[in-house]
């Protein structure tokens, strides 16, 4: 038999049903003490767990024993404000010294009533005696049974009235790791026993302290709730959140003794539920809300909210795509990003710059396949100046006037400006003059320099990336925006990224669409990131909610596969990207999803939508057979 656990608990009647069954326990030794003493014993490590008031949770990183607590859903009878006059005129309230949770509850309730008295600590007997005129007193514990006063405010009832939720007053808190699943079973067994003998406990209490046993029985069976289910947890979290909002308690995360099967869901706080509901209606999310959702909201909750947004922004059942070709004009690059499997240094035997013959073949094929756009991107080649690009663009436009040039990520434009020693604005003007139609949003990775410096130290900074987009948008160019996540960043970085995009979009309105994908581990030097479908669908849905000013969201079947992309159509996306004739960069890292136009349309239809072709400004070109 292992060493017995030590547990401290109060001797109040309402604790008896939880502690009675521990008498004679072989696993747990019970120590009775005053409420404040219970918290001290726990904090000092003199006991392994204690039945403490919930406010005591802030005194350590405690684990809550799941399933049981002392609470009330409505009147509690033993946590009262008492006075001769109505609380509305009180200017001073005496606080019983026994329980901080009740102090905070009293303050929260009075605050909600618009009453802001002075609070003075005083033992209950003295406080009650002085609760005259504009003075009231807080009374807690068994003393509450006998209080007589003109005005009594039952704080349990007031809380439930205020929030619609139960109030949790006390629970078993344990030192981290001290309590094993078997101990939880023992505590549960004890509670089941105690709850079964409440009538006897009421009689025993009456015999010891006097009073009506039937009244105590009703109190134990009808007033106090001993369960700690999702509903109670919501009440508990609401209380802790309000207390933290008012500065009465520090903000904390609830942690439970690890009991995987019965562990209550990590409950979302009310504010996150509210944020999700509001975002589903088109409300703008704050970065804090978005971080909270990123960290805590279940996938399908984000998905449902994002789907509601997609339905509002794109009513009907059209899902668009474009027929275009990715052409990577060179793989020579100087930035050597850790996540890239595509680049080669100049002089490497696999280094290339496409010649006109090769380009002609690729573009002719594209046109033959119904393509209307070339997505032209490449590495940062140190020898290619702006003239090279101008020549190339003019040549393309002369030979294929109908082909749109969606070309050069901000990184490349920045690089061309630097290589040719030109101002950014002039660089863009000259490229547009030569035939540039729009800019792809690649190379954004995570727009937070903390992350960028780590994964792509030689790449342009967040501000530089955005500066190119700003300049391009001001000159009437449209662009997409992207995010590659799962490179070891945190929720705050992803949200910072989305925020920078949203701010620029407020300013320029130049982004047509947002596309995200997880980092593709495989052939590169970064450790495998979370390149998972689950993370992708969550991130995508959050982006739909947060980027309220970006009209379109593309599902990335190239990186995630058709099935996951179909799921994304039901969680925020309205576009299925492109029929991609070639994509060197992602496939170099091991992704091998390929689809032709027929296959793209089959996926769109099978997911319950109608396919339609678009151009790179997201204007409809051609409805396809349903």
């Amino acid at each position, binding site marked *: 038999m292992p060493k017995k656990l030590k547990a401290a608990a109060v001797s109040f009647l309402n604790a008896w049903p939880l502690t009675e069954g521990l008498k004679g326990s072989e696993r747990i030794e019970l120590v009775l003490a005053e409420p404040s003493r219970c918290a001290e014993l726990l904090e000092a490590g003199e006991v392994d767990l204690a039945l403490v008031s919930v406010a005591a949770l802030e005194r350590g990183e405690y684990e809550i024993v799941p399933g049981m607590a002392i609470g009330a859903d409505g009147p509690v009878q033993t946590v009262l404000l008492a006075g001769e006059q109505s609380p509305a005129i009180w200017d001073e309230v005496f606080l019983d010294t026994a329980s901080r949770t009740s102090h905070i509850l009293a303050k929260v309730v009075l605050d909600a009533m618009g009453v802001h008295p002075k609070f003075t600590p005083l033992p209950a007997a003295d406080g009650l005696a002085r609760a005259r005129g504009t003075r009231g007193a807080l009374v807690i514990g068994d003393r509450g049974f006998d209080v007589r006063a003109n005005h009594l405010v039952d704080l349990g009832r007031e809380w439930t009235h205020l929030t619609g939720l139960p109030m949790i007053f006390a629970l078993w808190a344990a030192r981290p790791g001290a309590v094993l699943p078997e101990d939880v079973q023992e505590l549960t067994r004890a509670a089941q026993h105690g709850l079964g003998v409440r009538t006897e406990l009421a009689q025993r209490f009456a015999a010891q302290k006097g009073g009506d046993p039937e009244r105590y029985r009703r109190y134990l069976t009808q007033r106090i709730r001993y369960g700690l289910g999702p509903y109670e947890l919501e009440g508990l979290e609401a209380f802790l959140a309000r207390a933290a909002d008012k500065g009465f308690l520090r903000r904390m995360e609830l942690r439970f003794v690890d009991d*995987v*099967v019965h562990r209550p869901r990590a409950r979302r706080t009310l504010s996150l539920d509210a944020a999700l509901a509001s975002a589903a209606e088109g409300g703008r999310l704050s970065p804090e809300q978005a971080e909270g959702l990123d960290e805590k909201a279940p996938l399908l909750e984000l998905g449902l909210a994002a789907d509601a947004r997609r339905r509002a922004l794109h009513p009907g059942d059209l899902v668009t795509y474009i027929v275009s070709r990715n052409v990577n004009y060179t793989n020579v690059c100087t930035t050597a990003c850790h996540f890239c499997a595509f680049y080669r240094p100049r002089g490497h035997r696999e280094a290339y710059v496409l010649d006109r013959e090769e380009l002609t073949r690729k573009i002719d094929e594209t046109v033959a396949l119904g393509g209307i756009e070339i997505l032209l991107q490449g590495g940062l080649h140190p020898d290619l100046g702006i003239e090279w690009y101008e020549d190339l663009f003019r040549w393309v436009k002369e030979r294929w006037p109908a082909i749109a040039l969606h070309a050069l990520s901000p990184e490349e434009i920045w690089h061309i400006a630097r290589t040719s020693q030109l101002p950014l604005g002039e660089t863009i003007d000259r490229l547009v003059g030569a035939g540039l139609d729009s800019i792809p949003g690649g190379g954004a990775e995570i727009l937070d320099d903390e992350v960028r410096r780590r994964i792509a130290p030689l790449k342009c900074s967040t501000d530089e990336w955005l500066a190119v987009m700003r300049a391009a948008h001001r000159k009437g160019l449209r662009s997409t925006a992207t995010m590659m996540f799962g490179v070891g960043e945190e929720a705050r970085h992803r949200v910072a990224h989305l925020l920078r995009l949203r701010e620029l979009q407020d300013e320029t309105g130049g982004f047509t669409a947002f596309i995200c994908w997880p980092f593709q581990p495989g052939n590169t030097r970064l450790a495998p990131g979370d390149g998972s*479908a*689950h993370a992708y669908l969550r991130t995508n849905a959050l982006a739909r909610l947060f980027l309220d000013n970006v009209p379109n969201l593309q599902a990335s079947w190239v990186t995630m596969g058709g099935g996951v992309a*179909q799921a994304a159509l039901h*969680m925020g996306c309205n576009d299925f990207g492109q029929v991609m004739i070639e994509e060197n960069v992602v496939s170099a890292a091991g992704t091998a999803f390929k689809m032709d136009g027929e296959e793209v349309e089959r*996926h769109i239809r099978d997911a319950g939508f109608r396919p339609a072709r678009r151009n790179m400004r997201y204007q409809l070109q051609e409805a396809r057979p349903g």
Partner: protein
Amino acid sequence: MLSPLAHRALERDGLGDVRDRVLSGERLSDADGLRLLEAADLAALGALANHVREARHGHLAFYNRNVHLNPTNVCVASCKFCSFARKDDQRASDGYTLSLDEAVGKVLSRRPLGITEVHIVSGLHPDLPFEYYTELLSRLRGAWPELGIKAFTAIELHFFAEKFGLSYQQVLTRLREAGLDTLPGGGAEIFAPRVRRKICDDKATADQWLEVHRTAHRLGIKTNSTMLYGHIERLEERVDHMRRLRELQDETHGFQVFIPLAFHPEHNMIGRAFPKPTGYDALRTLAVARLYLDNFDHVKAYWVSLGERLAQAALSFGVDDLDGTVLEERIYHMAGSTVPQALSEQTLHALIRAAGRVPAERDSLYRVLKVHETPQAVA
């Protein structure tokens, strides 16, 4: 708790009555099943299925450590969806039949990997004696007493009964004496006669498949169940298939799990005419199965068939089981599957955890061997 957003979406989709039945634990009708399959609102359907899944299993996601053994690919049947079978064991046609020593040796060589289950299915070999199969099991059982032996689909068992002049009960009893623990769920395909006639007209019928499982259940042998979807069947026929399983389950309670299998089109007869079903179809089928099959404990997403990504996503669409480490999968790979032939336990854990679930290793009988607690709870 079903969230307000889910309630609103289901109301909007006109599925409020189905939702009410699900929430009150009432059984869904065939018409309900069909409506859900046709609903085209994947997020709302998923939320409802996820509600049922979490009520049953919380955040646990089950897997096992298993190895596949396919003793022969020689088969007298000519199922049009199959890329595995060969007509003879000539090397020229890629046919093979393992000797008993080879077959037993293959499994025993996996012992150091902590395998708990072997999954044995084969072609319907025209010449092998019944003793080949009993001997295979008894040698495995003798050498590795604690190994879970899941062997022979109802199609094979029916074939043994006919070929060797035995009743189902005699076949099953003798195999159990040799070491058999459970039956895999393969060979169910689609029960509807219209479909069976077209895709597999020369093997056990639906009634025979069900009777083999009924017999096994009566003998106390637990079994799995499958459905091969995404070829020529209609949605009604999927519901019909699940209804027959649900009825037998009411009668025997012998099924452990339902596993919808996506048809793979490469290197077989009907793949030319039908492309592979999409991931959307997989997710909705799994979700509807979770809702319709109210008397089944588990719904499995077989990652070999779906790929790791979809299988992971499926953990939010009603699925609680991902099969296992699956060493040496052959049947799907011969039909064009490009997923790895095995996943390490570590990779399975990572997949499960990244989906906010808790990996739980189970054995052949779905008893939990170990819950691998997460370092932290993820929503």
